[in-house]
């Protein structure tokens, strides 16, 4: 399980580099969503903490702002899964798009006010 998660940790670094140079989309957030929805690992929280902090550091954002955005998005996804329906392939795309928009808005707002 540990090595399974290490694969994700390395992926985060590569994705950060990718999104800073080639693809202007928050790939880390998408990976976090994927891990939260699909992975059965018990180290999800560690992974999200690590990803969000690394993202803030790499982008020179206020430390914790990405994590707060991630937390808020995950809370919404959690509530959706609990009260509406589990996120499946059909709802994955809209969830990802809405999450990206929410992240952009929240992080921008947090970096403005802090």
């Amino acid at each position, binding site marked *: 399980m540990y090595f399974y998660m290490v694969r994700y940790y390395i992926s985060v*670094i590569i994705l950060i*580099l990718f999104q*800073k*140079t*080639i693809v202007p989309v928050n790939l880390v957030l998408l990976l976090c969503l994927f891990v*939260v929805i699909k992975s059965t690992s018990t180290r*999800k*929280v560690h992974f*999200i*903490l690590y990803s*969000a*902090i690394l993202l803030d*550091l*790499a982008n020179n954002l*206020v*430390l*914790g*702002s990405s*994590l*707060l955005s*991630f*937390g*808020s998005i*995950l*809370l919404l996804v*959690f509530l959706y899964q609990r009260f509406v329906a589990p996120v499946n392939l059909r709802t994955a795309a809209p969830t990802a798009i809405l999450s990206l928009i929410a992240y952009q808005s929240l992080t921008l707002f*947090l970096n403005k006010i*802090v």
Partner: protein
Amino acid sequence: MRLKSIALIIFVSLALIVLDRFGTLVGAKKVFGIVFEPLQIGFSRSARKVSDELSTIWEVGKLRDRNRELEYNNAILAAENTVLKKVQEENKTLKDQLDIKIKDRKLVMVENIGFSTIGSSKYLMIDKGSDDGIKKDQLVILKDILIGKINAVTPTSANVMLLTDPDFKIPSITSNKTKGLLVGSYQKEMRLTKILPEDKVEVGEMVISSGEAGYPLGLVAGKIDQVNKNDKDLFQEAIVKPLINLEKTQALFVLQ
């Protein structure tokens, strides 16, 4: 993921924001920068190189497409240009012909469509016939140069007996007013015969129709290429070369 974990994430994030707000995480950020920045610079350079390569490949593809498109357009323009050149040539010929007035006689523009060889005779074929008012013995000219006369007519085409035909005979005079009878010879040239021995004939002189035997005056038949003078003969003779290469001539006029 459980609600407890999400609450933990939110709590940690708020704690981090507060700590960052008070500048307690500057050291951690600095360490991260030292480690991460070279990695990012290297990756950025590599990505730029890859991006440049990809854009080059992409541009090569686009240039190839563009080249194909231009080649296609060029072919169309070349075809249009060929048609326009033909029209321009026709216009020029018509304009030139209009400048030459031959006793106000009507001219019909015809096109050279090839040659018809019957035995030893070679006839020029034109694309208009009796339907367009073409009749036997009408003269075919280009500007003021005599080409021949209509020999046979069908409703849609006609044969022209050329000046070089042995059966074609026309009274002519040279530039020095020397009279003679122009006769075709071997389908290649003409002979100016019946020139009196005392008359002066020189190479390079132009031979024109004299206006006799029903032919109009002043039509140019050819240029003297060689003079044959023999004291024993009753008459002099000159070899006359045609002025026009009919193989390359497209538009002609029938004098009605």
